[in-house]
């Protein structure tokens, strides 16, 4: 009896305080999402049941939660933007949204968040899109477990999967982004976390940073993208445990760093990329515990890169370990494992007794005259590489790993 009283009172109290739930389905009182939004009050929950709803320009201008049951479809019929969020505290969960309109003047998105806080977009599936999730001037949001599959072919008429513009503190986790222009694009967005996403088969970049500082991305996989991952004009970015693979093409790389300062690149794996990391104008970056395997160039240093440190990385079977285009060096290489190291370790301390020169003469020549790559693995090239190793003339003579590891670095 006592229990029943407690239960009843709890029911009454919650009934009084929680907002109401509106149901949308073909046979319900409300048959369209637009109608539900109009009727709902702040903090209401809209439950959309299975079915296809042909709607666009849905404007969430009050704090609402919309939940899709059994993945209802909202079909924009290529007419323009589908969902726009202009209020704080909006949650979108479990919808499937498709057929976003394409325009050359407006960036139509499947879901756009404008000047809002505390938004959550999760378990959403986007198909046939222009822009996927577009966050502008918003903060403190979450984008979780979404699946974005576009059908982009050309750069000029396609949009990005997830785009952040002037946004802060956004968490992007466990999303799958494929076949769009840039998988994930951050511009002027600080303090964001990008974690455990899969970004692959995109026309341009898997992940693209522009003027965004203090972001973290970790545990993501970037594969088979048109040009790999580009991190540009940003400061204090942390890149941990990501996988960059199969970015194999004439102008592809695992990662492009341009004007990046004070970043940390730790525990990443780069394999089967034309260029593992392409570095330009980047300073004070820490490279540690990364694996570079079977790349054309593991690291290509273009110039104006100072005070970078490379420690305890594994360079395994790359055609070229490091390419430099000048003979000035201000970067430090220490305790890395190089699969092409041929030295010995007499005192058995696990560190090679003679230093390793990661820049080969041939990589210098290829930098100067790219056509000479046709002589790769020729015996003559091995001979001149050897003579350069003995007495460096063209390659920076202070570019040395003084403590090359004898066995693969483990951590």
């Amino acid at each position, binding site marked *: 009896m006592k229990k029943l009283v407690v239960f009843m009172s709890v029911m009454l109290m919650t009934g009084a305080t929680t907002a109401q739930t509106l149901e949308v389905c073909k046979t319900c009182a409300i048959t369209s999402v637009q109608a539900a939004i109009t009727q709902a009050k702040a903090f209401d929950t809209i439950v959309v049941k299975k079915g296809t709803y042909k709607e666009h320009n849905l404007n969430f201008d009050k704090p609402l939660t919309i939940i899709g049951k059994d993945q209802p479809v909202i079909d924009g019929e290529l007419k323009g933007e589908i969902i726009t969020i202009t209020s704080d505290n909006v949650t979108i969960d479990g919808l499937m949204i498709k057929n976003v309109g394409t325009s050359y003047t407006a960036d139509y998105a499947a879901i756009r968040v404008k000047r809002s806080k505390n938004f959550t977009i999760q378990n959403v599936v986007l198909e046939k899109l222009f822009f996927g999730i577009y966050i502008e001037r918003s903060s403190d949001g979450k984008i979780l477990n979404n699946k974005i599959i576009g059908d982009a072919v050309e750069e000029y008429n396609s949009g990005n999967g997830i785009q952040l513009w002037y946004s802060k503190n956004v968490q992007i986790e466990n999303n799958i982004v494929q076949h769009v222009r840039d998988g994930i694009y951050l511009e002027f967005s600080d303090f964001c976390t990008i974690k455990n996403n899969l970004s692959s088969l995109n026309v341009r970049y898997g992940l693209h940073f522009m003027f965004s500082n203090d972001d973290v991305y970790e545990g993501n996989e970037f594969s088979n993208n048109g040009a790999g991952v580009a991190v540009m004009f940003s400061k204090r970015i942390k890149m941990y445990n990501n996988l960059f693979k199969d970015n*194999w*093409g*004439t*102008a*592809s790389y695992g990662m492009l760093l341009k004007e990046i300062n004070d970043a940390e690149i730790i525990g990443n794996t780069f394999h089967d990329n*034309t260029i593992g990391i392409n570095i330009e104008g980047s300073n004070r970056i820490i490279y540690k515990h990364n694996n570079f395997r*079977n790349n*054309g160039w593991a690291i290509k240093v273009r110039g104006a890169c100072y005070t970078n440190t490379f420690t305890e990385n594994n360079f395994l*079977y790359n*055609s070229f370990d490091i390419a430099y285009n000048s003979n000035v060096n201000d970067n430090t290489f220490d305790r890395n494992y190089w699969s092409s190291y041929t030295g010995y370790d007499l005192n058995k301390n696990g560190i090679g007794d003679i230093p390793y020169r990661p820049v080969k003469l041939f990589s210098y*020549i290829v930098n*100067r*005259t*790219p*056509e*000479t*790559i*046709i*002589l*790769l*693995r*020729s*015996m*003559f*090239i091995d*001979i001149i590489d050897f003579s350069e190793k003995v007495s460096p003339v063209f390659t920076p003579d202070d570019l040395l790993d003084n403590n090359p590891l004898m066995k693969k670095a483990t951590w």
Partner: protein
Amino acid sequence: MLKILKYSFYDLMRSRWSYVYFAFYLLLGIVLLFLNNDLSKAVITLMNVIIILVPLIGTIFGVMYYYNSKEFTELLLAQPLKRSSIFLGQYLGVAISLSMSLILGLGLPFVFYGLFESSAIWDFSLLLITGTFLTLIFTALAFNIALSNENKIKGFGYAILLWLFLAVIYDGIFLLVLIGFEEYPLDKVSLIGTMLNPIDLSRTLILLKLDISALLGYTGAIFKQFFGTNYGLIVSFIALSLWVIVPVLRIVYKSKKKDF
């Protein structure tokens, strides 16, 4: 011709050198596979061996065989036999027995290792095919040198020089040309330069299937177009075939004219 081929072939099969050659490849294959444990890496190492050693052994063996069997050849010439069939028979005998040592010596360990279930089978077959081509080419070149030089020492000298030129010096000159003319478009020059040297051609052909294709495309559209398609593969094989046919034709021509 077939009879002479058969004779030369059995003669070589009985000789110690074929077995040494066979055993060398067998050992190489086994060591590579069991030290490397990575089939595609083993293929790269094998490539380095094949483009250097196969031509060398083909050249030396060819010259050696010609000079050693010279008395027997003169005996044969006294018989009512066509000259071309005598020399072609000998040439094919040497080339085929060398190719067999190569294919069996390298093939067996790989087959036992489980090549047929691996994706590297095409790379590996390409390796063996180019290896065979190189054997055919360099044995033919060796016979040419031997036919043109009565003096054994001179013949050996030229043979070694030829190998050294094609394996090392040619690439040096090639590199100098490329660097010297770096201001000009070099795509076509480097393609032609590759075609003119069977060792370079084989190397490029194998690398295309391995790691180089994207790196080559990096340099320009012509490379990409040529090497990215089957067209490049076909042209390369035609060039390799020409490298076999032309020296063989010269053997026939030279042997007809030669005064013994």
